[in-house]
């Protein structure tokens, strides 16, 4: 199943001036457990998806209180620098939709 069919919220946003953070939030407990247990979303798979070295995945955590998976990637240049896209980091999330969750 695709991640977009399991998660209720998938979003991205600046976390400070150098990073973009991604939140994948599940309303449905089973969908959350299934996704976390599958291990399909991890630092390696998101690095591969975004075509970046894994060292630029600055953090990857499961946040139980919100039934959420959260990871953060480092931008090439700080937000708002010339050439650096999307100064709020709010449109980085859509590639996550098609991640296949077994």
């Amino acid at each position, binding site marked *: 199943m695709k991640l977009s069919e399991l998660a209720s919220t998938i979003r991205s946003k600046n976390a400070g*001036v150098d990073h973009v953070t991604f939140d994948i939030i599940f309303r449905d407990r089973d969908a959350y457990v299934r996704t976390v247990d599958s291990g399909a979303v991890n630092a390696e798979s998101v690095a591969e998806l975004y*075509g970046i070295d894994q060292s630029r995945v600055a953090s990857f955590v499961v*946040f139980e*209180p*919100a039934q959420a998976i*959260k990871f953060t990637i480092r931008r090439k240049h700080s937000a708002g620098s*010339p050439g650096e896209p*999307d100064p709020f980091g709010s449109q980085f999330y859509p590639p996550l939709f098609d991640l296949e969750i077994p």
Partner: protein
Amino acid sequence: MKIMSPTGHLGFTPIEKDSFAAGIAEGPDAIVADSGSADIGPYPLGADLAHSPEDWQRQDLELCLLGARELGVPLVIGSASDTGTDRGVDRYAEIIRELAETHGLAPFRLATIKSELPPERLQKALDDGIAITGLNGREDADIDTIARTEHSVAVMGVEPIAQALEDGADVVICGRSSDSAIFAAVAESRGGLPRSSALLAGKLLECASFCAEPFMGKETVIGEIDAEGVTVYPMHPGQRCTPASVASHAMYERMDPFSEHVPGGRLDMTNLHFEQVDERRTRVTGAEWVPSEHFGVKIEGAGKIGERAISIMGIRDPYTLSRLDDVLAWSRDKLVERYGSPDERGYSVYFHVYGRDGVMGSFEPTPKVTGHEVGIVVEAVAQTPEAAEDVCALASRNLFYARLPEVKGTAGGASFFSDEVMAARPAYEWTLNHVVVLDKQQGVTDEASSLFRTEIVTVAATEGAVR
């Protein structure tokens, strides 16, 4: 105690008045609003300019000031005028005085707390051997970093704001401040509440209606705080604070959902517990305050890179689209031919290709053109406005003149939005996102308080203006 939060960024877009009025009717013990954000990019701080129209800032300040004075409760505004520079603090204080006069308000005590840190002081800190440590993987600051900085601010925590309130301030206008600390300062100094629930309240309330669902901005929410935790509820009748909405806000726009760092320690949110109280209220408990050995103060700074110009182009020919990289390379080659290499000559050009990877740039996993056309924003940066315009014009026109062997259209390879180059605001960069660590043994209080300069004055409307 009850704290009312009417907006996540005062002045950014105007506060919604109906839920604000509903909040006032709840009789809160304080009104607190942050006016800053780093999302707006490095330009407003670097150039020291407001990012929002003053009309909107004034409207929001007017609502908050009149509400707070009517109730006789404190008003705390953080990060004045988007960036929290001294200019922002002075301007907001001036607006408060003008509003007091306009509305004939009874006398009240106005505190300003400035936190701008001129680059010379940072240079002196380096000279004194005080480390300016990069945050989250940034390099530590050196002489070059400081030289590239035009304006910088220290981000204040709870202490200077709580002190101003303890000293009798009714209205506090803060320079750059941690958004959770402006709430915590009120909860501690006026509510006598522990740092754990005071800071938790700040964390939950700082973006106002973002902690409720469905998604709405600029609507008022209220937090009821006690020694164990916080109960949050919205003032817009269509919103609810649910464990899911409040928990998802607790992790919003931050790398580490388990910690909120402020000078002097961190709020540990690992064991937060979210409990639905009724249909519209959620109670949060389980936060812990963990004091740190050192007193770390965050520093933000920005500086200018160069002048900037942009133009807008479009390409529709499918063959040209299939050879787009060749077209862009042609344009870059013509720039080098005319002006020399970008590195040597101090200019740069960026092609933002909407319809391919304009939104995400190098992060785009599928940088292919799949539609029938693309839009290209040509962005040029150079040392003078004229040079930026010339580089931008040449880069744009060479998309038009690009040479491709099989092209059928031989009267121009690209469409101009209009054959003009638009002057854009100068290019800036975040030079500082660092922490200055002040050792307790070196006298935390003196060092820290000297970063934050407080003045308290009485504001009184002239006699004829008093209601």
